[in-house]
């Protein structure tokens, strides 16, 4: 029997399978989640030079990094939310590595997401399924909004009543977890939940239902417009941080070459 990895390597080599980078560059000016200041805040990304071929290190260049677990393109483990606190293998260092490679369904909401308060509903997903088939269990559902093409203030889209960014409503998150058994949910915006998701019931439903069922979140993804509706495979391996609740990571997609 042929080693299936030989086929994969061959497909990668021939270009029949392409690798797409779904990661935003981890930058010091990357927007992070904003909470009321009486709560603790995530440290922003900081990149401090140790040396760059200079007196502090004549032949080498290296930096010290400092950032919160939930900065840049990042992974949310079940322990991130109170609903997932008692589950086994709920931290980034213990979660099953097999889950780090999984297929993805990509729901194109780019047109609707011109409205910053757009909420994905069960009806949207059912319409997608009518076209592309039922969402398989243990697959990622990625919500394409094209918001990763925005920059800075337009990306964070903060107003005096908080962030306004598209996301899922409460019912669809419960349904995706309970009825479809998805592995996780991914967005291009800051947070798997909508910017105003704290005002839904329950508050932050994506976090609430995903992590309560031991599922994962991916956010601040990029380039979802390059993925097919089905058929992509996601490689998402967070840093193995001791008892970590999440981590920035490089997210890659393998996609079959078009045509």
């Amino acid at each position, binding site marked *: 029997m042929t080693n299936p990895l030989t086929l994969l390597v061959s497909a990668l080599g021939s270009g029949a399978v392409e690798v797409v980078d779904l990661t935003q560059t981890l930058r010091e*000016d990357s927007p992070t989640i904003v909470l009321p200041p009486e709560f603790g805040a995530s440290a922003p990304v900081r990149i401090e030079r140790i040396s760059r071929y200079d007196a502090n290190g004549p032949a080498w260049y290296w930096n010290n990094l400092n950032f919160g677990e939930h900065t840049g393109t990042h992974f949310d483990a079940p322990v991130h939310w109170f609903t997932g606190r008692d589950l086994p293998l709920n931290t980034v260092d213990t979660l099953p590595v097999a889950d780090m490679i999984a297929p993805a369904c990509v729901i194109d909401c780019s047109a609707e997401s011109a409205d910053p308060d757009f909420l994905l509903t069960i009806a949207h997903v059912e319409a997608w399924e009518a076209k592309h088939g039922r969402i398989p269990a243990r697959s990622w559902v990625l919500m394409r909004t094209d918001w990763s093409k925005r920059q800075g203030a337009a990306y964070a889209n903060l107003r005096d009543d908080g962030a306004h960014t598209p996301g899922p409503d409460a019912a669809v998150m419960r349904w995706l977890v309970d009825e479809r058994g998805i592995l996780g949910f991914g967005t291009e915006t800051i947070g798997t939940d909508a910017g105003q998701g704290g005002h839904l019931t329950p508050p932050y439903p994506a976090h609430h239902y995903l992590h309560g069922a031991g599922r994962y979140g991916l956010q601040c993804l990029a380039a979802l417009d390059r993925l097919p509706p089905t058929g992509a495979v996601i490689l998402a391996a967070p840093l193995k941080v001791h008892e970590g609740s999440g981590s920035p990571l490089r997210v890659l997609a393998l996609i079959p070459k078009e045509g």
Partner: protein
Amino acid sequence: MAPLQPPRRKDPLKRTRLPLLPPGQRSRAAHHLTAAAAEGRFALPRCAVCGAFHFPVREACPDCLSARIEMVEAPEGATVLSQTTAEVPADNYFRERAPWRVGLVKMDAGPTALVHLHPEGIAGSRLRLVLMLDRAGQAVLYAGPEQKGADPMTDPQWREMTADPLHRRVLITDARSFAAPALVKALVEAGAREVRLGLPEAWKPFATEKLTALPGVSVVPLDLGSERSVADHARDYGGKTEIVINTADHMRPGGALGGSITATRDAMEAVVFGPMRLAQALAPAMIGRGADGPTGAAAWVNLLSVHALAPSPALAGWSAAQAAALAWSHSLRADLAQGGVKLLNLFCGPADSDWFQTWPQPKVGGSAVATAAVSGLKRGLEEMFVGDVAKDVQARLAANPKAVEREMRQG
């Protein structure tokens, strides 16, 4: 004398004048005058036994030989005995700035002294003495117009010892500071050529329009927490900044045991490491331009809390960060002094900002900070206490620091 004109653009063929300093050696006792000059007080040594004022500071009273010398606020008036103009001084610093007027004055307080002399000073005229810090940071006497409030700014000798914002370009490090709007207004009114405000985290909403409505005012991205952002700013503006007003702050309440270490680290980052980053990027250029004409680089101002001197147990981490900022500022002052660039610390009482919402009045508003900053720059000061609380703490610290420590427990 003609008012100072805006500077012309530099001639790229000419070397920028390197900063020289006036003679800087002083005896230990002479620094009693430095302390007064740093705060803009006119205090002279006086014998505690016979009550005679002296000048300069001596180890013992020249009249009765008592060693009990105290510094006491003294009458500021003086009469000019004689004056002269040094056309070709031997010292390079003064030669570059010649002609330089000096005079012998008889102080109302008693002693006779050699002083830097305003152009109006001629033999027999009445003048008012000011203790100032010269470019070397040493206390010297300046005799200026007698009437209080008279503007000595037209005198280049006065300008040389001050950091007037007139025609200078100012960087305010954090546009989000409660004091930023008032500072912008005061600096524009004082004739600043440009006022640049740094905006950290430009992706968070901030209404720039009100600030930039005034002439010469702009808002630029600047995050003191980011090495890259600070370096990029210095690349653009390193040679175009004559005054820095550091308004960065991050106050979060919390005691020594109950306070958040993360919040303390954030405060240290905001008030110590951020300004360190900025200074390391910007200050070398400022030091190099310390003698770059009459509107060369002049001053660095820190907006600090009086809790840098008297920690509040209710604000333990933040007080520690403020104290660290103060300690570091003294080292920065020593480095800036190489170019004759001054460092002014404003010690403020509780600010009229969200984070002091529950604190009792009186609080310090932006306009009090702005008035103090501009006044301190125009007078070339090193230390100012802003607001009644800060002034009260200063007086109590001088009287009994241990009592202040205990009293701070009550808030």
